[in-house]
C-alpha cells in the first residue's frame, strides 16, 4: 500500500502556462508607481518560489523533502466514488470526487504552504509570515512551518480572530504565533489603529502587515492563492486524480471545482486540461460574489492593499467588498490570471450559485456520502448535481469528477446558521 501511495504522488508539478492558447499577460506595476511591486516580491518571497512563479517549464521537479512531507500529511488524498449520491439523483452519470478535506488541515491549502516553507528554509530563513482571513491558509502555513522546524507568524483578521477561536487554536497547536490584525507590531498596523483603535481588520490590512513584518525582519512571506505559483503546487491534486482514474479504468468527461482565487480549481483541473482529458471544465463561483457574470477582464491588484503587482484577471475590483456569505474562501474579488484567460477563451465554463442552493447541495451530499463539505466546495457539488441531472435527462453515461477542496467540520456554526435560515 505504501508503495502504491508513492507511485500515485507525482514527482513533478505541472505548469499550464506553456499550454495556454494565448500569452499570459505578465504581472505589472501600476502607472505612476511610487515603488515597484515586482521588486517587492523579490524581497519577500523565497527565491525559488518566485522563479517558479515566472517559469515557463511545463514540469518542475518536486524536491524529495517536499514529497516526503506530502506523504506525511496523507497524500495522495483519496479519489472516491459518490455512489449513493448517484443513486439519490437516479442518474446514469458516474460521480467521483477528489477529497482534499482528508489532509490534516482540512483543505488543499497545505499543498502550496509546504513547498513555499521548504524553499524559504532552503535559503536559510527560519521564519515565515502570512495573513489569514477565516484561517484555512494560516493553518496550512503554521503546519508547514512546523514540519520544517521553522517559526511562523500569522496575521489574522481581527473579526475572524474573535469569531473563530478554534482556527486560532489549531494554528497555535502547530506552534504558530497568531496576532489579531491590526497589531502594534507593524508601522502599518499602528497607523490603522491610530486612526481607529477598534478597527475590525481586513484581509488587505492583514496582508500589508504580514508583508511589512517579513520585510523588516528578513523573513519570508507566503502567498496563498491567485499567483500562478500556488496553482502550480496545487497540481498534485489533478495529477493524482488522473492516476487514480487510470487505476479505476475511467475516463473523465466533466471536471468541476469551486473558485475563490482559483488555486484548488486550477490545481485539480489544469493537469487534465494539459493532458487533453475531459470535454467540459466548470469553474464554480458564488452568486453573491458575481465575478464571472459581472466582473471585467482587466489589470487589477490581487490584494486590496495594492502591495502586489497588478495581474490581468476577471475581477470585481480590488475595492469590492464581498457580502458576508459563509463560504469565506470564495469571498475574493478576482480569479487567477491563467484561469481567467481560459474562461475568457471559452475553454473553461463557469457557474454561479446562491447560498440557499449550495446549502441544499451540501445537505444532500452529507446525507449521501456522510461528508460535510466546506461551504466553498458545496458550490462545486451543486454544479455536479446539475450536470448529473442533465445527464439523466439526456440519458448520457457521463463521468463527472470534482474536487472536494475541504471538509466543513470547522464551518459547523455557519451550517447551523444556514439551517436555521434556510431549512424548510
Amino acid at each position, binding site marked *: 500500500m505504501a508503495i502504491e501511495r508513492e507511485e500515485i504522488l507525482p514527482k513533478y508539478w505541472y505548469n499550464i*502556462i*506553456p*499550454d*495556454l*492558447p*494565448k*500569452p*499570459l*499577460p*505578465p*504581472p*505589472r*506595476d501600476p*502607472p505612476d*508607481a511610487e*515603488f*515597484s511591486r*515586482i*521588486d517587492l*516580491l*523579490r524581497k519577500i518571497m523565497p*527565491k*525559488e518560489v*518566485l*522563479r517558479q512563479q*515566472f*517559469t*515557463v*517549464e511545463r514540469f518542475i521537479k518536486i524536491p524529495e523533502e517536499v514529497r516526503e512531507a506530502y506523504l506525511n500529511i496523507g497524500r495522495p488524498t483519496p479519489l472516491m466514488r459518490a455512489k449513493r449520491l448517484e443513486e439519490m439523483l437516479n442518474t446514469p452519470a458516474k460521480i467521483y470526487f477528489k477529497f482534499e478535506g482528508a489532509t490534516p488541515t482540512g483543505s488543499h491549502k497545505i499543498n502550496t504552504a509546504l513547498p513555499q516553507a521548504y524553499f524559504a528554509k532552503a535559503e536559510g530563513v527560519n521564519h515565515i509570515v502570512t495573513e489569514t482571513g477565516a484561517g484555512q491558509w494560516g493553518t496550512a502555513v503554521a503546519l508547514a512551518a512546523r514540519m520544517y522546524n521553522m517559526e511562523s507568524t500569522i496575521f489574522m483578521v481581527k473579526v475572524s480572530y474573535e469569531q473563530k477561536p478554534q482556527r486560532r487554536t489549531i494554528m497555535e497547536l502547530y506552534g504558530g504565533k497568531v496576532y489579531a490584525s491590526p497589531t502594534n507590531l507593524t508601522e502599518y498596523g499602528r497607523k490603522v489603529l491610530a486612526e481607529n483603535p477598534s478597527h475590525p481588520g481586513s484581509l488587505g490590512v492583514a496582508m500589508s502587515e504580514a508583508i511589512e513584518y517579513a520585510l523588516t525582519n528578513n523573513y519570508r512571506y507566503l502567498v496563498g492563492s491567485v499567483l500562478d505559483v500556488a496553482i502550480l503546487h496545487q497540481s498534485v491534486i489533478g495529477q493524482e486524480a488522473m492516476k487514480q482514474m487510470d487505476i479505476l479504468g475511467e475516463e473523465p468527461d466533466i471536471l468541476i471545482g469551486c473558485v475563490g482565487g482559483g488555486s484548488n480549481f486550477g490545481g485539480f483541473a489544469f493537469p487534465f486540461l494539459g493532458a487533453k482529458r475531459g470535454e467540459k471544465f466548470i469553474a464554480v463561483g458564488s452568486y453573491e460574489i458575481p465575478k464571472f457574470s459581472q466582473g471585467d477582464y482587466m489589470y487589477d491588484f490581487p490584494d486590496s492593499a495594492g502591495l502586489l503587482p497588478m495581474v490581468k484577471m476577471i475581477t470585481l475590483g480590488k475595492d469590492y467588498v464581498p457580502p458576508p456569505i459563509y463560504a469565506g474562501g470564495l469571498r475574493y474579488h478576482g480569479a487567477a490570471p491563467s484561469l481567467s484567460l481560459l474562461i475568457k477563451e471559452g475553454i473553461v465554463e463557469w457557474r454561479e450559485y446562491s447560498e440557499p442552493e449550495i446549502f441544499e447541495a451540501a445537505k444532500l451530499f452529507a446525507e449521501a456520502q456522510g461528508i460535510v463539505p466546506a461551504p466553498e466546495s458545496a458550490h462545486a457539488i451543486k454544479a455536479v448535481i446539475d450536470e448529473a441531472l442533465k445527464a439523466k435527462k439526456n440519458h448520457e453515461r457521463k463521468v463527472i469528477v470534482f474536487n472536494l477542496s475541504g471538509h466543513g467540520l470547522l464551518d459547523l456554526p455557519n451550517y447551523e446558521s444556514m439551517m436555521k435560515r434556510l431549512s424548510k
Partner: protein
Amino acid sequence: MSKMLVSYATLGYPKEKEYLEFIDGCVKEGSDILEIGVPPKYAKYDGPVIRRSYKQVSSWLKDIWPLLKETRDRVKIPIIILTYLEDWLPVLDDFLSNLAKIGIDGILFPDLIIDYVDEYEKYVKKIKDHGLKAVIFTAPSVPDPLIQKVSKISDIFLYYGVRPTTGVPIPVSVDSLITRIRILVDNKLVVGFGLSDVEDMRKALRAGADGIAIGTAYIEAIERGGVQDAINLVKYFRGVLNEF
C-alpha cells in the same frame, strides 16, 4: 559573425547634451543597434529604473521629433524605436509615417504580442507598409507556436525578454529559457529585459542567443556616475560579447 549588442537609451536622458554624448559613445564602443525609448504614458512592462528615466525626460521634453531627427543624423547604425502601441493607437499612421520620414529603421512595441495578440498581424503589416522594420517582442509567457510564427516575420531580429519587467532581477533560469526557444526561432535572437548581470549574459549567449539588449544598466550607470560611466559599460559589454 560576432554577437549583436543592442544598446538602449531613453530619448533625451538625462539631458539633451548628455544623451547625445551617450549615443555617440554607444556607437563608438561597438553597439550594433541603437534602441531609443520614447517615454510612454504608461510604461507597462518597464521596471523602476527605466520608469524613472521616462519621468525625468517627460518633465522637460515636450516635442520628441527634433531630438529624434538629431539622433538619426548623428548615428549611422540602425535605430529602433521602443514605445508602447497603446499610447500611439489614436495617431498610429502619423506616428509611423513621421518615423519613416526622418529615417528611423524600425519599431518595437513591447505590448504588441501581449496586449494585441488577436490583431498583431494587422499592426505588423501597417508598420511594414510605412517602410519601417517591425521588430517583434516576445516573452516566456508567449506560447511556443506563436513564438515560432512571429519569429519568421520579425525584422532584423526577434526580441526575447526573459523577465516580466525590465531591470528587476527576478530569478529565472536564463539558459533553459533560451535553449527552449532557440529551436523555435528561425531568425536572429536578441535577449533582454532584466539582463544586466554578466553571468546571465554569458548563459544566454552560450545557450544560443545572437545578441543581447542592455538598457537598465546604462541608466543606472548614468544615475550613479554620469554618461562616461555608461559609455564604459558599453565597452565592457562589447568585450563580453566578443568572448563568443
